[in-house]
């Protein structure tokens, strides 16, 4: 909202207080000021001139050559194209060197061969409105040589207030409200409003008949005026309106706007000749109804819209915009002034639905004080009669509605205010602040009182003692409250599930980012339909938002993996190898309940395809498996066992998917990226990749068995190293063979490392050769050749049992 500094001075004496001071005071006590800027700084450069002589341009019919006295040195010769320029006028002159709005720099020039030393300006050229039929004729009493701004009192500053910081303050939506705050803050008095003392007698039945047929209009004042003319507004009015960004139209429209911007009370003028003799009705719209608003648009109405009707015909969308049919035309002298109080939510819904946010709807939305309406009506009449004394109020104004005063009585305890603020304020200090804000104090006894909240603060803002704490605090200034340390028993946070999860997640992140050198992602929770489609999950139920940020982005991930897949290709394109992980949440919908929340880690390792003759563990899958095992070990869990996964997730190559179980707990899966999905994601051709993915469930890891961490005595006797190679049927798992070798050791196997996997002619079709480095060790003696021999004999028998054979060099 734009506030004019000079407008404020109509309501409060601001001597010694600059616009920037006002901005600071308001910021610290009332609302957020977004900025302060000078209004039309150009006017400060433009000079009042006197047209001494005017001659016709020798070479152009429409141009004049003027001699203009600007109060300095010789009069200037200026060429002017305006039809209304004539000798004797006082005009606004931009001399050479002055810059006008639109970065228009005035220079000496020749116009059709005649020298021109400046420009005589129109109002539009000065940013003062649309008037461009001729030059601006200044009042003749202005002094030649003065700057126009100073001469007209047009020097002003515009203070921009963030509307959001005023949502709870309907009383601040006009200059008088802001001035009232400043008066309270600065300990100055608010100037009385002249209109407030004007006599006012209205009745339920008056000149204009009004029927309210809906509870959404609590007060409606209608007042008939005779004799008003839609002439040009006086300069002071135009200037103030321009300062706050309103385009002056004519006196009637301008005064209506002025009153709204002055008091915060919207109002509307109807052409009485175009209203039905049946008077005005306020009612909700009927299904199928429509009307044309002032902006010329045909609006389809809904039963939630409130209408002002003439007889039964809609003439205004209540609180939002007037209708085309009752628009005040230039030649009318018969007006009806409407000042009403409409329900905030009804106005907001209509204006939101129609995308029609007006100055009026913005104010009604905030819950206006019904007692403001008659004041605004009188204010407008007073201002109108000041400009056009012949204007008369016809008959008795009508004032109907079952409004109730919003003034309230709120009990308050002084000690509570002090305790809540932590401020050392006396009872008197608290009372002083409240009284400056126009609150009353009653029944002050035993450290408590009743605060009388004025109607303009009681519509919704001040209802509780706590609200009064804010009033006292903000005027006292929060900066005057001393800071305090929190006190209390210090105890470590409870080691509950949340704490355990957080600690586990940290260890996982550290292991992955700092030990395994993976990059951590934090991604959107929304996942694109296109990706879900590629994953074959398009039909799977997802938590879905009704109003997505973009087409196809309505679904919330069930698992973290899609988020990692979404950025795999783009990162792979930039780098030969990509190692990513994300720890996050997924949501599984649960009919009629809050969705189930799952905590997961998704990992991706993606590199150029492995070389054909690479060692069996030189590929992404094996590397990623190592990373997962390292995480499990770092978490202090039992190693668990891998086995082929029968229910592979949709991202996994189903033929090559393994699952990890610790005890019975399934903690996750690992697999090469599903080959069709790899292609769909663009990881083909030049970007052909060896990509492996893994998912770990944080929830499962939290429940998995812990590995024993008891100390084992260090070996006393030397290791004996033996290499064992077995030829085995393809379907025989490495883990089975490893277990068999361990059994053969009868407790002597201290370590096993698979170092070769071979398939080829030497072992035959359907078979593979696996080779291990085996460490044998006894805890009570040094092993002999005999021990090794017996071990290998047992391995040979076991290999036969597994359908294979021990390979001898």
């Amino acid at each position, binding site marked *: 909202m734009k506030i004019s500094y000079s407008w404020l001075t109509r309501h409060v004496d601001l001597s010694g207080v600059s616009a920037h001071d006002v901005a600071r005071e308001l*910021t610290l*006590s*009332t609302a*957020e000021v977004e900025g302060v800027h000078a209004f039309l700084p150009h006017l400060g450069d433009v000079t009042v001139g006197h047209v001494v002589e005017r001659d016709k341009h020798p070479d152009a019919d429409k141009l004049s050559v003027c001699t203009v006295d600007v109060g300095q040195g010789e009069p200037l010769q200026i060429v002017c194209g305006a039809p209304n320029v004539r000798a004797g006028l006082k005009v606004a002159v931009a001399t050479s060197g002055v810059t006008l709005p639109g970065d228009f720099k005035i220079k000496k020039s020749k116009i059709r061969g005649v020298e021109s030393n400046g420009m005589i300006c129109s109002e539009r050229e000065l940013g003062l409105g649309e008037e461009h039929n001729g030059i601006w004729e200044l009042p003749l009493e202005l002094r030649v040589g003065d700057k126009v701004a100073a001469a007209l009192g047009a020097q002003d500053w515009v203070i921009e207030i963030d509307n959001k*910081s005023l*949502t*709870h*303050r309907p009383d601040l939506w006009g200059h008088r409200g802001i001035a009232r705050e400043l008066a309270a803050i600065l300990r100055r008095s608010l100037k009385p409003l002249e209109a407030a003392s004007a006599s006012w007698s209205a009745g339920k039945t008056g000149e204009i008949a009004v029927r309210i047929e809906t509870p959404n209009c609590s007060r409606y004042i209608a007042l008939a005026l005779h004799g008003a003319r839609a002439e040009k507004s006086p300069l002071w009015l135009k200037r103030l309106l321009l300062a706050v960004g309103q385009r002056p139209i004519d006196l009637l429209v301008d005064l209506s706007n002025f009153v709204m911007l002055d008091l915060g009370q919207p109002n509307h003028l109807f052409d009485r000749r175009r209203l039905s003799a049946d008077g005005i009705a306020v009612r909700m719209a009927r299904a199928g109804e429509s009307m044309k608003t002032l902006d010329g648009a045909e609006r389809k109405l809904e039963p939630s819209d409130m209408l002002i009707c003439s007889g039964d015909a809609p003439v205004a969308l209540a609180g939002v915009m007037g209708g085309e049919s009752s628009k005040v035309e230039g030649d009318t002298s018969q007006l009806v002034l409407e000042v009403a109080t409409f329900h905030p*939510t009804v106005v907001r819904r209509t204006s*939101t639905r129609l995308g029609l946010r007006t100055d009026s709807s913005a104010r009604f*939305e905030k819950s206006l004080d019904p007692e403001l309406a008659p004041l605004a009506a009188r204010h407008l009449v007073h201002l109108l009669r000041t400009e056009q004394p012949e204007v008369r109020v016809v008959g008795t104004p009508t004032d109907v509605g079952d409004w109730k005063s919003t003034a309230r009585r709120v009990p308050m305890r002084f000690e509570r205010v002090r*305790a*809540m603020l*932590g*401020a050392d304020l006396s009872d008197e200090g608290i009372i002083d602040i409240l009284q400056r804000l126009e609150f009353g104090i009653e029944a002050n006894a035993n450290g408590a009182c009743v605060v009388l909240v004025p109607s303009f603060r009681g519509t919704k803002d001040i209802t509780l003692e*706590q609200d009064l*704490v*804010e009033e006292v*605090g*903000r005027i006292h200034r*929060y900066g005057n*409250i*001393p*800071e*305090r*340390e*929190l006190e*209390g028993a*210090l*105890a*470590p*946070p*409870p080691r509950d599930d*949340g704490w355990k999860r957080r600690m586990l997640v*940290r260890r996982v992140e550290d292991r*992955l980012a700092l030990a*395994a*050198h993976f*990059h*951590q*992602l*934090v*991604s*959107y*929770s929304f996942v694109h339909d296109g990706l879900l489609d590629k994953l074959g999950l398009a039909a799977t139920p997802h*938590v879905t*938002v*009704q*109003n*997505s940020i973009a087409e196809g982005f309505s679904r*919330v991930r069930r698992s973290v993996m899609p988020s990692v897949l979404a*950025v795999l290709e*783009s*990162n792979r394109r*930039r780098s030969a190898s990509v190692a990513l992980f994300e720890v996050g*949440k997924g*949501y599984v919908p649960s009919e009629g*309940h*809050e969705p189930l*929340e799952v905590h997961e880690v998704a990992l991706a390792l993606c590199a150029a395809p492995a070389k054909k003759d690479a060692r069996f563990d030189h590929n992404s899958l094996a590397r990623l498996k190592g990373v997962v095992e390292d995480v499990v070990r770092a978490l202090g869990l039992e190693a668990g066992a891998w086995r082929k996964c029968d229910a592979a997730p949709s991202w996994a190559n189903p033929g090559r998917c393994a699952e990890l179980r610790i005890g019975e707990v399934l903690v996750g899966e690992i697999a090469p990226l599903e080959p069709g999905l790899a292609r769909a994601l663009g990881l083909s051709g030049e970007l052909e990749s060896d990509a492996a993915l893994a998912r770990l469930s944080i929830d499962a890891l939290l429940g998995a068995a812990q590995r024993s961490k008891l100390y084992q005595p260090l070996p006393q006797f030397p290791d004996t190293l033996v290499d064992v190679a077995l030829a085995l049927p393809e379907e025989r798992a490495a883990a089975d063979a490893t277990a068999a070798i361990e059994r053969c050791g009868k407790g002597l196997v201290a370590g096993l490392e698979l170092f070769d996997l071979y398939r080829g002619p030497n072992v035959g079709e359907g078979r593979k050769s696996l080779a291990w480095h085996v460490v044998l060790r006894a805890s009570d003696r040094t092993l002999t050749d005999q021990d090794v021999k017996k071990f290998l004999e047992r391995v040979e028998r076991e290999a036969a049992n597994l359908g294979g054979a021990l390979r001898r060099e």
Partner: protein
Amino acid sequence: MTYAPARARELLARIAEPLRAAPRSPELDALLARLESFAALSDEQLNAASALEAAAAPLGAMRAIPGPSRGLVGATSNELKKLAEAELAAQAERAAQAALEAERKASDFDATLPAARVERGALHPIVAVTRELEDLFTSMGWTVLDGPEVETEEFNFDALNIQPDHPARETMDTFWVATPPGAPRLVMRTHTSPVQVRAMKRLKPPFRAIVPGKVFRNESVDASHEHTFHQMEGLVVGKGISVGHLIGAMKTLLRGIFGREIEIRLRPGYFPFVEPGFELDARCPFCKDGCSVCKRSTWIELLPCGMVHPNVLRAGGIDPEQWTGFAFGLGLSRLVMLRYSIDDIRHLLGGDVRFVSQF
């Protein structure tokens, strides 16, 4: 005694002398001839290596030496051997020292050659800063809480004193989850504040808690607006908690973040779930007299905060007459951007490794 050819010659003579007096034999003659051939070498040729060879001759032919002479010849030969060996060892040591010296005076060194590549990973900056804040607060006895991103309308709005007809519910800012008719309405939480009431229902006052997490707003996205971003809620409930405590806690928070004292100011701000409500500004840590970060105002709007509204305490089952509290909502994404001078919020969740790897 150091090695010298003259000394070697002298020892050779002392070896040969008893041999010449001894009874002749072909082996002895051969030995004598060999000793003489060494004695005949020039000083130059009779170096430590030759001397060692010479000493080896009698030692390798002891059987050819008559008994009485063996002791003397053996001892003298050993003396020559040791002398030669000591000289050779000294020469070797000198050569080794020279090599070390040469290595120290390397001329093929380029200090700017690149290092061998070491793989590196990184924590996401949001995670790094979240951890920093968690550690700061837990060290002061605060608890870290978590809450669901898909939240009920009840916790996201009602319990927070946001009235049913409050614009915030209806505006497009809220992502509404499609729910079957009659079922409780769900939203993507618009702030971390719903966890305030969840915390009140779970924890007994007094307590202090922070809640870092993801929040969602249906806003058009640009360099400074994202539809998904991170916040950190803070909540303290206790006896006699006042605005003064809020100010103290916020100053501690800023000291923790910026590592030094930062001036703050509270000014009125309106949020339905706090009363009084504030906007907290921090004196711009990046400038003294205005910069682009603080938009030339020297103040940075850092976080909304306030005293917990009695209706919110009530919704959490806490008696507002007995207990009071304060709450704040730190813009974690914004703090991360401030901390690392990130100029586009979209990098945070954009999933580009080149971004994450910088941290």
